[in-house]
């Protein structure tokens, strides 16, 4: 017998069937977290005190923030290859337009084997605003949702107070809003071309909060010069010397002399030092070359090699660890990498370990003692802060410049993101300064590139931070700058997006350092006009090639 209600039952059933599917969508944060857990079989990383913080935020509502949700996933596989559906689709299903969510920014970068994805959604809800940020990297993911009152936040920025306690500073003034005064109101990264490929941000010289002065140098407490007197006398000299009452006839073609009023003679000798790597046709290092096997061309003039050191000479290496906030998630692999560099250190080489944030901290002075070097890595705990990358590199160049020995190198483990790139913080030395310095010093730089998309930076952008679109532009500029620095000094950039990519990097750099010859020559026709002089080094063997820095500025 057919029920008279059969049609109605079917209709109700049909209406109810899709309901769970509809409800499964549009729950925003919850849906995205669930999607990440299910799609990547990932587990959330516990964030201590998060619940307490959220409770207080809901009561105190600092800066107009009414609540937030955070989920962090670390050390798990989030590669897009595992996506059952495109993540963009998952985001749009979680943050549905019918509930007022709008996609604000979506970025994806697959450069250099990495997979970085950023999604920012935005929703207006009466007087409040909700922003949702999801970032996915190869091994990390984060989901953040924040609800705040823009009016209250504007009031807070004008007069920062929490529970009636003034924070004593007009945050609004310092806030580099995408549209605010002092910020990059045009929404376009300001920059100028450097050497045809590197975008650099012009900045004022340091005026505001200065970087704390360096604490110590990498130089050992015992005298560093171990060469004999003859060797020291033959050491390349880069700076002018003043020789009292010298015989003018002794001045060679490679020197420039002038008699000053005090009857002393100023002899200005320029010696250009080069670290040169030579390889055969197959790219294998050539380690048995002699001075006569090399040709040096300086600005189209063939030069005579005045000083030569074989590949077996010891190397002085500074390992620099960027311990700023932007590399916080990479701290563990970074320490592991530094440790492996210590293991790969040949017996005669010396290494110093430096940590930098806005401060330059020497954790270990130059030494061959591997136990002491490894122990120094323990001292990174608790170090955290901003990034004075350019100034720290400058200080490392200063330190190495005091060493008599040639064959000096820096291995810097960093994302290269100097603070000035993100918020126009003034620096003592700009990147242009640093690049020029690198062209003048005989220090080879090997950047080990650690990149970590900062969720907080993405969020700060959404709230009116810098217009660098989630740090992508900053990261690109930083990466190009690292490449330029490596190229300028004859070094090489090494990717460290994952531990797998780092495998072999230690031995590679150690091998590279011991395939470097040290050459020095006095250029014939110095002009001191600040022009850039190109250097070209050749090897007199069939198919062989030499790699060194590109040139130097003739000052």
């Amino acid at each position, binding site marked *: 017998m057919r029920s008279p209600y059969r049609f109605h039952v079917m209709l109700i059933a049909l209406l109810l069937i899709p309901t769970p599917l509809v409800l499964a969508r549009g729950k925003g944060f919850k849906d995205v977290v669930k999607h990440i857990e299910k799609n990547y079989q990932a587990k959330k990383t516990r964030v201590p005190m998060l619940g307490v913080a959220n409770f207080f935020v809901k009561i105190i509502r600092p800066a107009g923030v009414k609540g937030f949700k955070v989920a962090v996933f670390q050390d798990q596989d989030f590669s897009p290859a595992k996506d059952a559906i495109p993540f963009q689709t998952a985001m749009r299903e979680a943050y549905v337009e019918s509930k007022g969510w709008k996609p604000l*920014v979506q970025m994806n970068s697959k450069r250099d084997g990495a997979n970085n994805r950023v999604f920012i959604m935005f929703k207006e809800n009466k007087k409040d605003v909700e922003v949702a940020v999801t970032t996915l990297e190869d091994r990390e993911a984060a989901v953040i949702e924040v609800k705040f009152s823009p009016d209250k936040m*504007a009031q807070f920025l*004008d007069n920062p107070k929490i529970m009636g306690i003034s924070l004593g500073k007009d945050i609004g003034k310092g806030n580099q809003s995408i549209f*605010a*005064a*002092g*910020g990059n*109101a045009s929404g376009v990264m*300001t920059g100028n071309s450097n050497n045809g490929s590197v975008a650099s941000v012009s900045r004022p010289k340091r005026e505001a909060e200065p970087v704390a002065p360096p604490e110590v140098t990498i130089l050992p407490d015992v005298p560093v010069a171990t060469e004999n007197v003859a060797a020291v006398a033959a050491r390349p000299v880069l700076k002018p010397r003043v020789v009292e009452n010298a015989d003018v006839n002794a001045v060679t073609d490679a020197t420039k002399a002038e008699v000053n009023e005090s009857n002393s003679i100023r002899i200005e000798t320029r010696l250009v030092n080069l670290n040169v790597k030579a390889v055969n046709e197959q790219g294998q290092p050539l380690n048995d070359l002699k001075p006569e096997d090399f040709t040096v061309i300086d600005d189209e003039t063939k030069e005579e090699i005045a000083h030569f050191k074989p590949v077996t000479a010891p190397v002085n290496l500074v390992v620099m660890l960027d311990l700023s906030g932007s590399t916080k998630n990479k701290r563990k692999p970074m320490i592991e990498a530094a440790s492996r560099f210590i293991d790969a250190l040949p017996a005669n080489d010396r290494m110093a370990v430096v940590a930098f944030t806005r401060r330059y901290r020497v954790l270990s002075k130059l030494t061959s003692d591997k136990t002491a070097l490894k122990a120094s890595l323990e001292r990174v705990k608790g170090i955290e802060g901003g990034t004075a990358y350019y100034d720290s590199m400058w200080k490392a160049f200063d330190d190495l410049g005091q060493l008599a020995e040639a064959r000096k190198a820096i291995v810097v483990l960093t994302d290269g993101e100097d603070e000035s790139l993100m918020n126009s913080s003034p620096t003592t030395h700009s990147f242009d300064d640093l690049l020029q310095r690198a062209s003048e010093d005989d220090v080879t730089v090997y950047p080990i590139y650690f990149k970590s998309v900062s969720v907080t930076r993405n969020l700060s952008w959404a709230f009116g931070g810098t217009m660098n679109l989630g740090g*992508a532009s900053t990261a690109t500029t930083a990466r190009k700058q690292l490449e330029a620095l490596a190229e300028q000094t004859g070094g090489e950039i090494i990717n460290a997006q994952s531990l797998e990519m780092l495998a072999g990097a230690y031995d590679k750099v150690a091998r590279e350092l011991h395939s470097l010859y040290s050459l020095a020559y006095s250029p014939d026709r110095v002009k001191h006009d600040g022009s850039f002089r190109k250097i070209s080094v050749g090897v007199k063997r069939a198919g062989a090639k030499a790699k060194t820095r590109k040139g130097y500025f003739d000052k």
Partner: protein
Amino acid sequence: MKLKLILLTLLIAAPVFAQDPARIQMDHLERLFPKAVETIDVNVDQSLIRLAAKFLKTEKQDEAAIREVLNMVQGVYVKGVEFEQENEFSSDDVQRVRAQLTTPGWSRIVGVRSKHGGENVEVFLMHDSDLIKGIGVLIHAAKKLMVVNVVGPLDPEKISQLSGRFGIPKLDLDFSGMSKTK
């Protein structure tokens, strides 16, 4: 009855289909996203711009000036892709954007072709007497394609007041050719 229903539906749906002539359609570029090594997709609409403007103080002259400009902006939209290899996008992808920018109302004000990087930059303006209704920037090279669209109206005089401030280069803009009727 049925006709009335259809007309009513069309009437309700009309605002959805009504497109601001200064808004450039660039959704077709999304199909290029999966192959690209870098993608960017920005949709800043009026509500977010108004929100940003709230953080600027009217009593400060500099901020008031930019607030005034922002209050007129209807939206900022960007879509960009960069590939590892050449020929990953077709000339049709570029042409579909350029075709919109060559319709009446738009005029090309800048065209730069770089032999160095092979990059082509074209800037288009849509203006209605004394107001800029939209700005379109089309950048394309062998491995790169980007479209930037700012939807106005924008007052050129107010924009020129921002030049040399807030990090914007001093441009010495001359809008005499489209000056306001006094």
